[in-house]
């Protein structure tokens, strides 16, 4: 007999099928519907910290990356209200760190920048904090530029769960929360981080960078220069993207 009809929910008036156990975000992406997100990575458990994937389900705002899809849900995603909220979240992230896209090696393959473009963020809007976050250039092969950290914890998760090294951690609370390196000296050189580690390839922004690779892919030819994030994230751009030069920095998988 024909298999049971797949369960569905509605997102902005479109039917989205899902497998039981899938989150709203997973199902939406699988169905080719982009929902802006930053701390979600398909290879890791949902984290629910950035809140960019916020949607309204039956009138309630929730993080779509941590909410299981249910038959018959009415999900609002790209409504003016939700998009405004997302824009504000992105603007907060920009002012909380020091994000100077023009001199950033990750420009063009940075998810934060790409999401900002997608949401039409034209200015920071809020006054920048200009926090002081010294870079760590002690490691022979890796540069850590804390200025750009958005606290998604992907590197922490990758280093702990995949690499088994626990190189990274968070410290501090509230506005003072920041990424640290697990070494007595506090220096990356004194950890076991190696360039082959998974933790090297998950940062959605430009914190964890390989040294001596800067600008190997020229600006203008990078991942999100070629295709908007809403295509890349749902896999629509992969075929075309595969023909381009691979990015020497950042996720080899799209970190979708």
């Amino acid at each position, binding site marked *: 007999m024909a298999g049971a009809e797949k369960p569905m929910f509605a997102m902005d008036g479109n039917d989205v099928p899902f497998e039981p156990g899938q989150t709203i975000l997973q199902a939406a992406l699988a169905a080719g519907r982009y929902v802006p997100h930053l701390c979600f990575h398909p290879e890791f458990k949902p984290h629910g910290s950035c809140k960019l994937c916020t949607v309204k389900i039956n009138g309630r705002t929730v993080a779509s990356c941590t909410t299981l899809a249910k038959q018959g849900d009415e999900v609002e995603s790209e409504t003016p209200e939700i998009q405004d909220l997302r824009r504000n979240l992105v603007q907060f992230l*920009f002012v909380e760190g020091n*994000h*100077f*896209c*023009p*001199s950033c*090696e990750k420009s063009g393959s940075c998810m934060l*920048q790409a999401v*900002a*473009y997608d949401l039409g*963020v*034209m*200015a*920071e809007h809020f006054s920048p904090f200009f926090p002081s976050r*010294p*870079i*760590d*250039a*002690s490691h022979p092969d890796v*540069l850590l530029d804390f200025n750009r950290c958005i606290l998604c914890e992907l590197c922490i998760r990758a280093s702990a769960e995949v690499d088994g090294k626990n190189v990274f951690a968070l410290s501090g609370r509230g506005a003072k929360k920041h990424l640290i390196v697990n070494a007595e000296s506090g220096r990356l050189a004194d950890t076991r981080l190696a360039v082959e580690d998974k933790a090297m390839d998950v940062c959605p922004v430009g914190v964890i960078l390989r*040294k*001596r690779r*800067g*600008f*190997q892919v*020229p*600006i*203008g030819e990078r991942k999100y*220069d070629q295709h*908007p994030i809403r295509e890349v994230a749902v896999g629509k751009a992969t075929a075309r993207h595969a023909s381009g030069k691979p990015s020497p920095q950042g996720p080899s998988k799209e970190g979708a």
Partner: protein
Amino acid sequence: MAKTLTIDPVTRIEGHSKITILLDDAGNVEDARFHVNEFRGFEKFCEGRLLWEMPGITSRICGICPASHLVTSAKAGDEILAIGIPEAADKLRRIITLAQWVQSHALSFFHLSSPDLMLGFDSDPAARNLFGLIAAHPEFARRGIRLRKFGQEIIEVLGGRRIHTPWAVPGGVREPFTAAGRDRLLAGIPEALATTQMAIATLMLMFERHAKEIPAFGNFDTMHLGSVRADGALEYYGGTLRLRDADGNTIADGIEPRDFDKHFAEKTEPWSYLKFPYYAPLGPEKGIYRVGPLARLNVCDFIETPLAEAERLKFKALGGGAGAVNNSFHYHYARLIEVLFAVEKLEQLLRDPATLDEHVRSKASINRHEGVGATEAPRGVLFHHYKVDDDGVIQSVNMLIATAQNNLAMNRAIRQLAKHHLTGVAEITEGLLNRLEAGIRCFDPCLSCSTHAIGQMPLLVELTRADGSLLARRAR
């Protein structure tokens, strides 16, 4: 999808220029000041960054000579790595430096100054700009635009991007050059040469047309500072510094860029963000010097390429024999002679097979904690001075730009123009405004106001009484 997002403080580097003319009790011009509020905090901004990022970051200081900052920064980095760079890298950096001369000088002459020169200082300001020039002299304007594009094209072919290319790095450059790129650029040389010669011929006509005005166009004695090669030839990328006085006597010679601060000091004024450097042994009054095309042609003994050398001899005659050429108006001529040299030299360099070598980058880690890089940017000698820690993290940055070094002289030029054109009536006439504007343009200062709006300098002139009260104000 449109890419217009630039969330960074860099986009806020903007500045209107303002001139204050101060009158004495008798109502005569006592002083004139050119106020600059530019480059706020850029040096601070670089602290804490990695040495290798510096070329990419500093090339964003300036939208109009990014390649000069790029190469100067990379040279400061070479010093810190304490290594020699591959021959190909050295030559490619020379090519991009000259390309920047062509691009920037063409912009200065054709886009910014020609409207004044060819349409007349008193012509309708609404039409005294590049568009007015295109309407009145379409062929001239078109060729000028193409010359600037040629300079840009070289930067693009080498660096991959027209401006702000992070192509040069401490130790060399990122990408080798290609035969295809070379051929494409060589093809542009004949037209560039012809256009430059045409521009020089046109300027000669302007000498006649403005013969009455030229003598008071920032004509005063100062020293001149520029780089020369070991044999005394005009230099643009390496060499040592030479200082000559207004009579052409050599005051100091063989100064290594890293020793610059042993010979030069800076004073600051509350009314300007730009520093005022001077030759320390002579003090701030007598120690005034100019940099840039006029100064370079005054300090060199010869130019290594034939067409430019022939023009240099004619230029020299303008100063009357052995002395130096001290009239700021002749920056224009000097600039065009430099373009001629640049095009001739570019052809030589492009034909040199050594530029195609694949080995373009020497790698090393931090071997010194301090480095100074200097090159001759279009507007004059440019210094980058960095201090780093063991990891190569920048601890301090000092950049000395050409426009700052010309600051004292620019102020003197506008004082002279104000004195000459403001007699009797204490009023800022259109004619005065135009001359002040044109006087500043001789120096081609790299302020965003002189570059972002082609031919339209947002300028505010204020006339104040001896007691400091405002007498008149006129803005454009």
